[in-house]
């Protein structure tokens, strides 16, 4: 990808994504952390667009910002007397070391490996092709995923249901 627009877009979105992600880990206030998480998701959607993955980019905004961020917010709001502080436990230093190690290894592998033949062109429009794949070759995983979603819904409802026999609200 060499045209100026894509290069500029990549650097902007990469900076937003990584910067916001580090902010998510660094800020002390949990709500600020979630707000920065939303920025990270948005930056990732931008990166997907530079990768010509239009469908995934839009789905990223729809699911991650519109649904998962909201779920996390609900998790915060529904635990009112719990801490709003985003602090670290005693595992701070080991976790930092491990994270640095993992990042270093992955970056080393990324540059060291020969990834083989490169595609030069992006995709034209991916939505139709993804739909075909989902209902044709990946039909079984698709069905399993829907069963998983259903069981997750039922499980979540069962977990947070109040204990005891249901009283008749009047």
């Amino acid at each position, binding site marked *: *990808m*060499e045209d100026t627009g894509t*290069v500029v877009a*990549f650097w902007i979105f990469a900076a937003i*994504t*990584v910067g916001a*992600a580090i902010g*998510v*880990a660094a800020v002390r206030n*949990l709500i600020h952390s*979630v707000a920065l*998480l939303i920025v*990270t998701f948005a930056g990732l959607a931008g990166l997907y667009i*530079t990768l010509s*993955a239009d469908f*995934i980019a839009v*789905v*990223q905004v729809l*699911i*991650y910002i519109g*649904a*998962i961020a909201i*779920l*996390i917010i*609900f*998790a*915060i709001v*529904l*635990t009112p007397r*719990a*801490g709003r*502080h*985003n*602090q670290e*436990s005693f595992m701070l230093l*080991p*976790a*930092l070391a*491990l*994270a640095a190690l*993992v990042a270093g290894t*992955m*970056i080393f592998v*990324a*540059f060291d490996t020969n*990834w*083989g033949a*490169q*595609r030069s062109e992006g995709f034209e429009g*991916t939505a139709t092709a*993804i739909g075909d*794949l989902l209902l044709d070759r990946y039909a079984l995983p698709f069905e399993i*995923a829907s069963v*998983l*979603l259903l069981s*997750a819904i039922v*499980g*979540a409802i069962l*977990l*947070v249901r109040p204990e005891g026999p249901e009283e008749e609200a009047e």
Partner: protein
Amino acid sequence: MDSIELEHFLVVGALLFAVGLYMALAKKNFVGVLIGIELMFNAANLTFISFSRFVESAEPLSGHVFVVFVITVAAAEAAVALALAVLLYRLRDTIDVDRMDLLKW
């Protein structure tokens, strides 16, 4: 700097994954751990999409399909994790993972 290759995206993905891993391991708050896990999912997604875009293969869009499944599972996971957080809060009045030490010696 003047050309964007696969490695650039892989580095972004690696950094995201590292931040997510750090949060999942080190954060005290259950929600912080949850956020870390979501970040790791996203890093994996980015890597999938960039391989799908850059590496020549017979069926290049399989990576996209896999990301769709990852997003689905992430949504299900977030819903269940929210339920767990609320349940933990009801039982223990806190969602600090440090305090979940009933099974610890």
